[in-house]
């Protein structure tokens, strides 16, 4: 039993109709570790992390979080267990302000009229939103700004702030660098390293192997829904990972 183990997914299978997206897949993540999840389109990367985020139910297999078996029936359950995600599309609410975005689903409330009404604690939301944004090092002072008025990098940091502010244990980054400028990419990669330093486990999915190699400790490669390689970054190189991704079909 690995005491450092944060997430252990064992023998996970998942089909969508007749398509087997995952076949007996195993995946492990330790505390303070960044694991890159690589694979071609349709290899099952997104399915795997969406199962961990509670978005998809899985057909069979077991998931352990810090050694104890968990059942992830909904995104809410995953979030409550400390599994947070930063999605490719950021999953932000364009027409809503920053603090409502950051606190969506876990808004603090205060009692009014002797507990008859539970109203949003807007001051607390505002205050904590500022604290959360400070962590991402992007300076946004107006928490009542609507998300659609923000730049790409600012939006990214709102999504990041939302994921890391609530004592996450695991942070899933699904293509976090896809739509960003070079400078913004570096910020996101730095952030992954900061999370790691705090003992948080990070799963990063990206098509850009250079990005992945610059931060990951380990890389798991999926092919047609099964893991085909699990390499320490120190012991491998981009060429080898590329071969694993492409597989035997073309070699």
């Amino acid at each position, binding site marked *: 039993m690995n005491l450092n183990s944060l997430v252990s997914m064992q023998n996970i299978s998942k089909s969508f109709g007749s398509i087997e997206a995952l076949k007996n897949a195993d995946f492990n993540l330790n505390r303070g570790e960044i694991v890159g999840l690589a694979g071609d389109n349709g290899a099952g990367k997104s399915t795997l992390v969406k199962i961990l985020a509670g*978005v998809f139910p899985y057909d069979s297999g077991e998931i352990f979080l810090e050694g104890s078996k968990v059942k992830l029936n909904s995104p809410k359950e995953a979030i409550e267990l400390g599994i947070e995600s930063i999605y490719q599309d950021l999953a*932000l*609410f364009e027409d809503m302000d920053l603090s409502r975005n950051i606190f969506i689903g876990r808004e603090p409330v205060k009692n009014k009229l002797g507990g008859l009404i539970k109203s949003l604690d807007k001051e607390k939301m505002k205050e904590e939103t500022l604290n959360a944004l400070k962590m991402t090092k992007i300076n946004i002072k107006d928490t009542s700004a609507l998300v659609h008025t923000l730049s790409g990098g600012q939006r990214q940091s709102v999504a990041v702030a939302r994921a890391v502010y609530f004592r996450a244990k695991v942070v899933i980054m699904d293509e976090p660098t896809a739509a960003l400028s070079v400078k913004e990419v570096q910020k996101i990669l730095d952030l992954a390293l900061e999370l790691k330093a705090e003992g948080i486990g990070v799963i990063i999915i990206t098509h850009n192997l250079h990005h992945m190699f610059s931060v990951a400790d380990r890389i798991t490669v999926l092919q047609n829904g099964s893991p085909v390689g699990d390499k320490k970054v120190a012991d491998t190189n981009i060429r080898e990972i590329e071969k694993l991704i492409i597989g035997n079909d073309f070699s």
Partner: protein
Amino acid sequence: MNNFLLRIRNRPEAGSFLGFVVFFIIFSIFGDQFFTLGNQTSLFTLTAELGIICIGVGFLMISGEFDLSVGSVYALGGIVFMMLAPHMHSLFALAIVLLIAASIGWFNGYVTTKHLIPSFLVTLSMMLIIRGLIYMITSGRITSHKGDLFVLTFFSAKMSNLPGFLSDFRPSHLWFVGLLILFHYILFNTRYGNHVFATGVNKPAAVRMGLNTDWIKTKNFMICSCFAALSGVIAVSRFRMGSPNIGLGMELEVIAAAVIGGISLYGGTGAIIGILFSAFLICMIRNGLLLMGAPPYWYSAFVGVIVLISTIVNIKLQPRKSKF
């Protein structure tokens, strides 16, 4: 000035207020007897009955769905209430009516969210089914209201015990304003309101952030049907009778009022308070045209033009990029 304009732009109800003021002034100047207490209170009676439904429809539209069955549920609520009232306490009859309405709303929500059928079609079918049912149970005849006066007194009769001009008002006015303030508060100041917005703005993201969007929508369908039925009960107890045709076409008036009130057809934006002005505006147009001596047939054309203008204005005022 710039700041002021920005603030206005972020208030979805501003347009309906403007329209309300413009028409109110026009009708007051040119309409004979328009600006009298009696006319204004009877206008407000109609406004309250339309507006109560609008609150529910507004919540539903903000969460991204429609309800075309409210006109039929309004009629069903009224007619079932009148059929039950002679046999029991009228408050009990009202409770049964609301229970039936809640089940209809639940069914609309269930079919829409679990079977992924557009609510437009689900509630269109429901509208036709219920209207058919009403003709069946009434055999097409007018039903009259007998039994105790409890609901009548507390919802729709003129408050004639009150002194002076207050005696022209009805409890339904208070119910409407009370519900309006309550639901406006819920929308902007509670977790539920925040979740209703989130569901309408970006449903896939809301699901991934752990919100049960299906249940949120279903609850809004239930609120919507309950308010429609309540409004039906208020209307028939005011007339003390009701034909099976009441509420025909009402669903479109309600949606028109919601849109003029600043609620987006695509969900995600809107404010409940705008309904106060837009519902009044719609009722005022019918009444005002009549008092100005214009042919009453103009009414629907007028409402159509106003809906069109307010939609265009609302879209132009929003500084966002197009989502479509």
